[in-house]
């Protein structure tokens, strides 16, 4: 660790307030009415910041809001044109710099699934890309894995710096801040003081120790072929998915699920075109205008969810579309476990006959 800063616990609020002067700072924070519920919120002084707790929804909504206005439109009556009205469009937007502070390595890594799809083309998404370019991720080295976590099984780990611009490493009395990228270094310089050699040593020990931990069993990264072989095995999919309720919870809490819908929401002569989260587990997701639905039941829908993350996406982009955060497992109303489904893909067929 060449360069590092120290931030004492007591200075956290002040540091976040300092960062907020130039950027929107998003932190995991507990809800006033439900202290156990931790979500990413825009920092403001007095907010109960919870770096110690895993957040329910990932940091996805910071760069990919649940609902965002793409453009506003106004209809103006004009009988001189054949339509009887003219449409005025306004797609002006301002993008503020953003800091995601205190997310877990899995949250930061989740955006590595978004990036090739939204920023690399053939269609570059300006809304995501513009925000992405102005976002800095400071992730906390994670020592809170639970039974649902499996980051190591997707090629990551609880100290993974990939996707992060800086790392927060918990040490006695506070955190050592370690820059990973130049952007991370530029962000940290003003808020921390240079860490003492013993703090750096302690941080390095934590980093080494957490880095050696394995969270989740085996590897789920090489099953693209097994998925294709399993595709037409209804008994397999029924055995795993009969219990699924086909709600959208798993996709909404997921850091890598990026599917959306675009709708025009108008009242009278004014309205806006918005982009909002959609979920492949919903029936309307693939409903065609003819009324035909190529994924008529939860079995086809869930199979697609597994296929997208562990087969189609890796075939196209060379990486699985899963960061192993475990939210889909942890929060599922009926505890559907995607790890078990993916792990069983290559298993003997007889097991599910």
């Amino acid at each position, binding site marked *: 660790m060449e360069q590092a800063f120290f931030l004492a616990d007591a200075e956290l609020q002040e540091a976040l307030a300092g960062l907020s002067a130039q950027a929107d700072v998003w932190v995991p924070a507990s809800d006033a009415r439900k202290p156990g519920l931790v979500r990413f919120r825009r920092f403001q002084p007095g907010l109960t910041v919870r770096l110690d707790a895993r957040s329910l929804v990932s940091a996805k909504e910071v760069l990919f809001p*649940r609902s965002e206005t793409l453009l506003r439109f106004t209809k103006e009556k004009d009988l001189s044109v054949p339509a009887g009205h003219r449409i005025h469009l306004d797609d002006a937007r301002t993008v503020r710099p953003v800091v995601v502070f205190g997310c877990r390595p899995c949250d930061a890594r989740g955006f590595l699934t978004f990036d090739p799809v939204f920023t690399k083309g053939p269609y570059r998404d300006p809304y995501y890309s513009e925000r992405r370019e102005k976002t800095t991720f400071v992730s906390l080295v994670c020592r809170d894995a639970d*039974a649902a976590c499996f980051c190591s099984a997707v090629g990551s780990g609880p100290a993974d710096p990939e996707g992060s611009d800086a790392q927060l490493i918990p040490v006695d009395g506070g955190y050592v801040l370690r820059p990973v990228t130049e952007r991370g270094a530029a962000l940290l310089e003003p808020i921390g003081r240079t860490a003492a050699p013993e703090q750096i040593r302690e941080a390095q020990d934590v980093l080494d120790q957490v880095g050696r931990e394995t969270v989740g069993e085996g590897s789920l990264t090489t099953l693209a072929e097994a998925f294709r072989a399993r595709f037409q095995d209804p008994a397999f999919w029924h*055995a795993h998915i*009969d219990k699924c*309720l086909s709600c959208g919870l798993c996709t*909404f809490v997921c850091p890598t699920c990026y599917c959306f819908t675009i709708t025009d929401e108008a009242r009278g002569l004014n309205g806006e075109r*918005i982009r909002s989260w959609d979920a492949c587990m919903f029936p*309307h997701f693939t409903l065609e205008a003819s009324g035909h639905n190529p994924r008529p039941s939860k079995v086809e829908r869930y199979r697609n969810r597994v296929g997208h993350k562990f087969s189609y996406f890796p075939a196209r982009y060379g990486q699985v579309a899963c960061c192993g955060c475990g939210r889909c497992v942890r929060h599922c109303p*009926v505890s559907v*476990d995607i790890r078990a489904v993916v792990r069983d893909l290559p298993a003997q067929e007889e097991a599910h006959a």
Partner: protein
Amino acid sequence: MDTLHAHLEALFDDLELVIGWETGYEPLRPTPAFLRSREDLSRLVWNPLCAPNLSVYLPGILKDAKETGKKIGVCLKGCDSRSLGALVQEGFVERERLYVVGLPCPGTVDPEALAEARKSSAPVTHVSFRDGLLAITSRDGTEEIELERVLARRCRRCRHPNPLHADVILGDPVPPRRTEPSFSDVDAVEAMSLEERRAYWEEELSRCLRCYACRNACPLCVCRDRCLAESRTPKWTTQRDGVRDKFLFHMIHALHLAGRCTECGECERVCPVGIPVALFKEKMARIALELWDYQAGTDPAATPPLQTFDPSETGI
């Protein structure tokens, strides 16, 4: 537990499959199990963590089941059995195609309350339940926690711990916590002024993610893939993230359950952001009780009050 396994073992040749619960990814999370072979039966578990109401699966599984003449076995708690009753009442489930194993229920656990009550946060390796005590084992040892301390809200107001409409009841009857319907949580919200109440619900509902887990876990939400919440033609709700559309969805959900909700509390249990959405339905259940002396799902032969018309009814 031994009785449950032994009972189903003896009957298994006459059953197409058994729907029960098995240990999920950790012992704290029993998950619905669809057991299709005799060997699978050994996976069955039954304890106060078996929260999911399995009656939600019945209309779908009966529709898809092959006509083999064999029945479908299902394990139901008291509240789950009322949902079955309502599904039979409305013609979604043919009772004679089921073999219903009724399990008197001591109450189910609120996972958040349990996490708070536990001293250890280490992953749980084993769970057992006896005499009102949950024994939770992890690498830090075994902790005993009184079920009464960590009960789900729905179970605190339960007056049907003993299943109705069952073919067999396995286990001793459980004395109900309530003998009279209890609406004290609804009362608490109704005691607020209109402005306070509006602020309360706006704050609660603003957290809604619109994941529709509440809808999909509801055994009486029978529209399934035809829900108006996602319909664009006609369009009832927008895709905006504001509280206005969330409010509208939850109001429609509650009104569609008027005189139908069996108060199993699944909508509230599955909500990832902890909105007390069951309160809306409890309010509806109270109106049905006061207006018609009607409790959904208790009498499979009764016609739900909003699905009939009686000119002699007064007070409406």
